[in-house]
């Protein structure tokens, strides 16, 4: 799914196998990462290409629209 609005990702830690594929495919600047080799949960993503969600072998990544988070 492609969206133009900024999103915030959430990792299902129970499913994540800490493989780093999401980081490898992420077009963000350096540092858009978590402590556990995944893309960041703490910051909003304004590119919202969703490559990380798509590449994840176990579909551990979901997102919410930033606007919805802020409300």
């Amino acid at each position, binding site marked *: 799914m492609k969206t133009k609005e900024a999103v915030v990702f959430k990792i299902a830690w129970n499913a994540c*196998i800490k*493989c*780093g594929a999401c*980081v*490898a495919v992420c077009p963000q600047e350096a540092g858009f990462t978590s402590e556990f*080799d995944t893309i960041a949960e703490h910051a909003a993503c304004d590119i919202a290409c969703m490559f990380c969600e798509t590449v*994840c072998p*176990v579909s551990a990544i979901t997102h919410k629209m930033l606007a919805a988070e802020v409300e």
Partner: protein
Amino acid sequence: MPDSSSTITMPEYDLVVIGSGPAGATTARFAAANGARVLLVDKKQELGAPIQCSGAVSHNALEQAGVYPSPEFIHDAIYGFAIYNGKGEKKIIDYRKLKPDEYGTKEGTIPLGYVVDRRRFDRYLATQAERAGAEIWLKTAATGFRVMENGSCEVDLLKFNEPVTIRAKVIVGADGVQSQVGKWAGLKTHIKLSELASCLQFVVDGVETAGLLEIVTGNEWAPGGYAWVFPKGHGYAEIGLGVTRTMCTENAQEYLDRFIKQSFFKERFKNCRILEIQGGGVPLAAPLKIQYADNIVLVGDAARHVNSITGGGIHTALSSGKIAGEFLAQLILSGKPATKTNLKGYQDNWLKAMGNNMWKLYRVKRAIFDTVDVVKRDEQLYATMSGYFSTDSEYKKI
């Protein structure tokens, strides 16, 4: 009064290598062995873990990098390949039969390759680097760097959560497929979604193997990739696959489940029990066009040194680590500054030794995966894989 204590005590090295996988540990070993002062850092507490690799590597690759095939890290010996098309027809390339005087279990013959335990293998390579004179810090993440006026740089590390800054002339980004070091230097390291295979694998009990790496091609089982069954030693096997997500609608986990339950191997896999779950991303991409910047070089997965036909990256990581380590030690000892212009020599050496061939493989891969007709694409992949592993393959060196 300015606080000068930190500058006085700041540790200084010629080289800081970020990441102690096969690429980083090998770079550190060859640089240290050739006289450079080397610091090797890795953010992990246990190298190689969690495993993101199947561990297949040729005897030749280890030998070229001066790595003795030790039982410390070998799960199983490999003597050849079985390549399958999507229907289950196969081509067996067993070097025990094709070259019985060279490969086998008899006295005077050797295995063609091995399946290694990446936890033990990466630890072994780090030990080798340490014995060659490199210093190693685990639980140490590199977080950034600054170039200083004198041409060297300061590198920020987080060691057991304590910020530490060190000085180094060159930074080696050996930080794997998720490399951030390249991004620090403004290098174009981003991998396209269409060029990162999404992989999942299970180490299982209850599946027999016969000293062969089994590779299953075919869009039905693994679009834009392949499935595999590897021997893992002690009666275990590994079943895995990688898919290109722009060529399919489901994730790797669903494809793996289908491969186990519905493929021509379903009877063979009927009683398999899953003992470990691993995965990762394999760049089936071209090597980076530029793998160096002022004070920085990239090696291994960080520079996309991956064979884009097989997805193998251990051999290329070891080889490029050797090239980088030798080159950098020489540059440093010559007293020349680590400018972009001077570091280009590393990439030139790498292109000559293996890079040009890796580019060639990438073009072959592109031609296959760009074929729109699925039947033709499947035929091409099956033929290319069979040819790649044959005795007269032109790519034996990578």
